[in-house]
């Protein structure tokens, strides 16, 4: 009786969603890939300068005047590429953390990586060494993130004989809280100007995009992406239970270690490049789960594509809505993301 009732109730809902979405996972991936390409083209074509499309194409091809070439090739294109890679990296890391920690509330920053990065960046800004070189803040942020990854792992691994993901989650949250306190302490002693730039860094922005940042993130994202996509099936099994995964032939400890370190480093790289951009890593994997289910063979590549498309759209909006001023991109991700997510939740009938 109790088993039959929900089945009957969800039948029409299931049929309706099925009609609205591509039938196969491959079709969905293709759709998301196209969406990302469109978003990428739009991000390069749209901007405060209001260049006509013809001029953008000419600039891309190496023609046109110097100004439009500089705008398109040195500002918009690297920024769009950085946005797509960061968005993809954050969504992918979020999906991996949700599976690793077996917790739907997990997101890329839940294990303290962003807190560590922020301590590094804010310290560099407040202490005044940020002015020495444009590389100081990213390097300091990366160092802080790596320290956070190491500290959280040490705590989680020391508490049990193997990596206990519940302890890992707890350690991440606690260490993150500690870092937040350190940040507030640093800000207390900051001058007005450095206070402002520290807060802006923490809100996250892609305005610092450069070809070198693009190259650095790409060098890391490619192998990390392949490694994480290869974990799709083991993560599927881990989502059922560690004991079950072990008995189905998964090297559970190895998978957890690889997932933790590779995804954390991915977050560290993206935070170092553009600060803390919230919400993508939580909402994109969830939205995809609601629409197409939780098979990580689909979910991981789809998160990469959808995250990229989403941050491209959000950043284009952030650049143009209040031009010449720029809105914080994290505000846009939340303003677009929350209503879409609420809509998806409301439609869910399982």
């Amino acid at each position, binding site marked *: *009786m*109790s*088993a*039959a009732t*929900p*089945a009957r109730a*969800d039948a029409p809902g299931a049929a309706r969603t099925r009609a609205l979405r591509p039938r196969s996972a491959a079709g969905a991936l293709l759709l998301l890939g196209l969406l990302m390409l469109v978003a990428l083209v739009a991000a390069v074509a749209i901007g405060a300068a209001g260049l006509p499309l013809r001029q953008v194409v000419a600039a891309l091809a190496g023609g046109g005047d110097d100004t439009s070439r500089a705008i398109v090739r040195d500002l918009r294109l690297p920024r769009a590429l950085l946005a797509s890679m960061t968005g993809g990296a954050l969504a992918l890391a979020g999906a991996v953390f*949700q*599976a690793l920690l*077996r*917790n*739907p509330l997990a997101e890329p920053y839940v294990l303290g990586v962003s807190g560590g990065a922020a301590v590094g960046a804010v310290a560099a800004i407040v202490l005044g060494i940020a002015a020495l070189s444009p590389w100081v803040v990213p390097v300091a942020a990366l160092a802080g993130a790596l320290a956070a990854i190491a500290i959280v792992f040490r705590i989680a691994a020391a508490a049990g*004989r193997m990596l206990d993901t519940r302890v890992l989650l707890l350690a991440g949250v606690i260490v993150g809280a500690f870092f937040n306190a350190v940040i507030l302490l640093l800000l207390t002693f900051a001058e007005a100007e450095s206070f402002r730039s520290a807060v802006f860094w923490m809100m996250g922005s892609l305005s610092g995009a450069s070809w070198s940042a693009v190259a650095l993130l790409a060098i890391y994202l490619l192998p990390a992406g392949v490694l994480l996509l*290869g*974990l*799709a*099936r*083991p993560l*599927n*099994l*881990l*989502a*059922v*239970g560690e*004991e*079950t995964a*072990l*008995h*189905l*032939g*998964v*090297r*559970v400890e190895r998978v957890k270690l690889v997932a933790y370190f590779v995804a954390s480093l991915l977050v560290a790289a993206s935070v170092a490049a553009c600060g803390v951009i919230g919400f993508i890593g939580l909402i994109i994997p969830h939205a995809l*789960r609601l629409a197409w*289910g*939780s*098979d990580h063979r689909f979910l991981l590549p789809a998160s990469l594509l959808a995250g990229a498309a989403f941050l491209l759209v959000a950043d284009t909006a952030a650049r143009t809505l209040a031009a010449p001023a720029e809105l914080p991109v994290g505000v846009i991700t939340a303003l677009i993301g929350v209503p879409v997510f609420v809509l998806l939740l409301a439609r869910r009938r*399982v």
Partner: protein
Amino acid sequence: MSERRDHGVTADVPAVAGSEAPRAAASAGAGGPAAGRSVFTASGLRFTYPRAAAPALDGVDIDVPPGGVYAILGPNGSGKSTLLKVLLGALAPQAGEACYAGRALAVWTPRELARRIGVVPQHEELAFPITVRELVAMGRYPHLGNWRREGEADRAAIEQAMIRCDVLGLADRSLATLSGGERQLVRIARALAQEPETLVLDEPTAALDIRHEMEIFELVAALAAAGGVTVVLVTHNINLAARYASRILLLDRGRVAAEGEPAAVLTRETVERVYRWPVVVERHPGPGRDEGAPQVVALAGEGDRGDGRGSGGSAE
């Protein structure tokens, strides 16, 4: 329970037990254990959990012969689950050695083991909703690894396993919408999709009603009777173990209290000593092929509980 399930089960179970039996034998024939070779062997197993006062396993020997149903019984905390974990290589014993098919468990990789042993753990909690078919298909992981796609043979194995456990009709349902009994059948189907030569179940019928309990014991007995699959199960149901198991291992506080055929193990003296409760042992009245199997009946306490425990306690 839904109408539909009731219908399916009563119609299919007896037929399934007969007609499907040859397939199980054939599927296990390829990788099956050499005739007469023990499945699990272990001697002198000792294991103490960190900060535990007493060892969970305190010198356990075990020898599971191929074929048949091998039941591991014992009171709560007697070491059943720990023994199973050691036999499956999930825990390394502090002393003694456990082997599967004559090879030390430390030498087997998880994947090699998963191609030969299907395990139905006691507890599973899904982190995200999945369908019945998705869960059963996971049984192919040891054969496919991280990248290989499902082939014809894999799809056939998945479907056969679902037919065998009578859950094919539930294939597209979300696991969360199933009853406890249906869910357990689905998990057994996943283990069968591995096409294992040995099937290990940890308390497979805990919290199930009598029909599902009987269904699962009938199913594992049929799998074992076909000669292809060795079944090892941990259970608290002494009486069903007595009816369906070919051998029983009775654990008591980390030691083997008795081992052998049900009638030899389940004597009044042994059961009272191990469980510390007064019992009588009857014969199953039948009808059925297990007529005459020993059946343990626990007696009501005489007066207060302390008196009831008295006769068992003094037997130590």
